[in-house]
């Protein structure tokens, strides 16, 4: 059993979850995820690591309440326990001295990009971080991200904070400032991953995005997370979850994501992350 240390809503519909999972954090690296099972009656769902504390043995996750399983997680209180937090899974984000790296986080990705930003900075890169949301009240962790960012760009679609606009706007700003990235990394919903790939492809550098496929085991056993990258079948849980967006078959991915939508026909509310 894994004990909940903290759970709170940090912005509307996005929750912070801190769970005691010392085994999981011992060898964890940026870009990895865990599979969480909130107990009988829930699904096993993948959630990215947003932070961790080796000393306390805790893992921090930022999640959006979208359906049954995340709904259950949103009801947890400190002291509650859940049966499964397994990981760290997936290949870590490649961290190297690339030069200038643009890191983009939207929705839960403002949290899960944080370890990536930190590690890239510590490796000596120039890190440009872009945080993106519908409105000012949906941005979080600005201070945390600022510590490791050479430049922090805030985008809101309604213009209530930072620049007004969406992912395209970020690209415009980058171009205007004459920055030449050596790599782009994005974390967040599918729309964000897809749009980032489109908007940033012209730089002709890798656009690494996390693919939010459906997952069950996260160990390569079930194949539900399969996707087509560069014409080959890949399993997002063991070969990814990060891939160069320029090589991803997006149409197929979008299609596979809605497989269980009929069964989950009840509540799906969006706080308006990404551009859907």
């Amino acid at each position: 059993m894994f004990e909940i240390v903290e759970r709170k809503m940090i912005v509307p519909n996005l929750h912070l979850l801190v769970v005691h999972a010392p085994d999981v954090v011992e060898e964890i690296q940026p870009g990895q995820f865990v599979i969480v099972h909130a107990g009988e009656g829930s699904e096993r769902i993948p959630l990215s690591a947003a932070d961790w504390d080796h000393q306390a043995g805790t893992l921090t996750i930022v999640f959006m309440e979208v359906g049954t399983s995340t709904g259950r997680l949103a009801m947890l209180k400190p002291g509650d326990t859940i049966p499964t937090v397994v990981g760290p899974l997936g290949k870590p984000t490649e961290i190297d001295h690339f030069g200038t790296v643009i890191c983009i986080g939207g929705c839960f990705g403002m949290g899960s990009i944080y370890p990536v930003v930190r590690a890239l900075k510590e490796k000596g890169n120039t890190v440009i971080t872009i945080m993106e949301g519908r409105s000012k009240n949906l941005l979080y962790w600005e201070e945390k991200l600022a510590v490791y960012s050479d430049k922090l760009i805030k985008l809101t679609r309604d213009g209530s904070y930072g620049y007004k606009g969406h992912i395209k706007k970020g690209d415009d700003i980058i171009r205007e400032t004459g920055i030449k990235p050596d790599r782009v990394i994005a974390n967040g919903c599918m729309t964000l991953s897809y749009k980032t790939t489109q908007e940033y492809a012209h730089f002709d550098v890798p656009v690494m995005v996390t693919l939010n496929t459906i997952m069950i085991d996260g160990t390569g056993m079930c194949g539900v997370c399969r996707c087509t990258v560069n014409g080959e079948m890949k399993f997002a849980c063991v070969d990814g979850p990060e891939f160069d967006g320029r090589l991803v078959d997006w149409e197929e991915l979008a299609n596979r994501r809605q497989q269980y939508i009929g069964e989950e026909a009840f509540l799906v509310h969006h706080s308006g992350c990404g551009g859907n």
Partner: protein
Amino acid sequence: MFIILDVEGTNMAETKSARFERVEMPKQPPYIRRRNFNEVALGYTPELAVREAKRCLDCKKPVCIEGCPVEIDIPGFIRCIAAEDYSGSIKILKEKNCLPAVCGRVCPQEEQCEIKCILGKKGTPVAIGRLERFAAEWEAAQPTMDLPEIKSPTGKRVLVIGSGPAGITVAGDLILAGHTVTMVEALHEPGGVLTYGIPEFRLPGRVVSREINYLQQLGVKLICNFVVGKTRSLAKILQEYDAVFLGTGAGLPWFMEIPGENLNGVYSANEYLTRVNLMRGFEYPKTYTPVKRHKRVAVVGGGNVAMDCARTALRLGAEEVFIVYRRSQQELPARLEEFENAEEEGVIFHFLTLPEKLIGDENGWLKEIECSRMELGEPDQSGRRRPIRIDGSEFIMPMDACIVAIGNSPNPIIPQTTPELEVLKKGTIVVDESTGRTSMDRVWAGGDIVTGAATVILAMGAGRIAARSMHEYLSNSR
């Protein structure tokens, strides 16, 4: 619960010819069982078991033993049943097989122990598997179970990775030898394929959890939700443990590599069975793991896994379920009993048929499957006649779902994260056959991770060999 018995042949007179006729085991009738997840075969009553046991000739040279990969003293345990000494019987079984309740149910007896039985020459062989199951169930029904004696602690620490039949065997053998044993499992429930793969109607979950509980009673420490290679590297584990066993199985599903395989409604057998078994999707919507209720389902493949998927689809309410297999019925690798069960339940078999293309509708869901007819040519490497496509024989089958059950490769996580470990191209770990030792010091392996997808009893046999070698090593090391 209300169970209808369909007892055939039990009223047969005790004539001489009864020696050649096996006592049938009661089963749920097909028209009932095809819509529920309860166990199909209901097991012998003591009367039936004794009668079947008495058929055994107690041969001087029991050829049946040669057919059992773990060499159970078959006439010995059957003799006890005939004498109504059930506890004696289970004791003999457990000397060689720590999972009789599982093997009695799922071993391919018709090509192992039973095919050798002398009675098969004149009639039907002794129902060795059914008797094995009976003895195990008798033991489980007793209020207390005798725990075997555990040797005094050696202070040696062993980690068993994977909780399938191979891992269970190693853990059981080494704890009895006095070592400290921990078993880790990647999923949230132990048992390997016995838990996530083989369905409830063939191997009820309670049978597997009983075996796991027994190991825990003996003192094995079980840790679920722990992925070796991810949660902890093998190198780091070796700093903490004296010896390690890899029993991580063959869990990576193959696909056919034909167009349309990523359409919605196309599943690997593992996904389909895991949703239903491990995530208890068969109780949906009581539990929350959605399982689509498809009307027309095609299952590609001809092994036990394919039969399990087809019969599961029926139980989830499918109207028509097809097995699409590229060879003929003679080559079908599934157990005979499971093939017959599937047929009785109404699964429709398309032999000599090869899927060529999966075709979707405008919303990205599977709509139809294009197949070719096949004919059999010369035998291939496996000794089975090679299927050859008949040109121009393409035809289309309308279909809502397709389950791909054509095989699995070994799970890649440990080999990928452990470069020192020698593996073959197909991903299987290289071991010394007589000991189960891998290329890495203090690391043993066995089961499907070494052989590729095989059987429960072979995985257990490999576990036993490795356990013996591990014990020898641990006893001789400081």
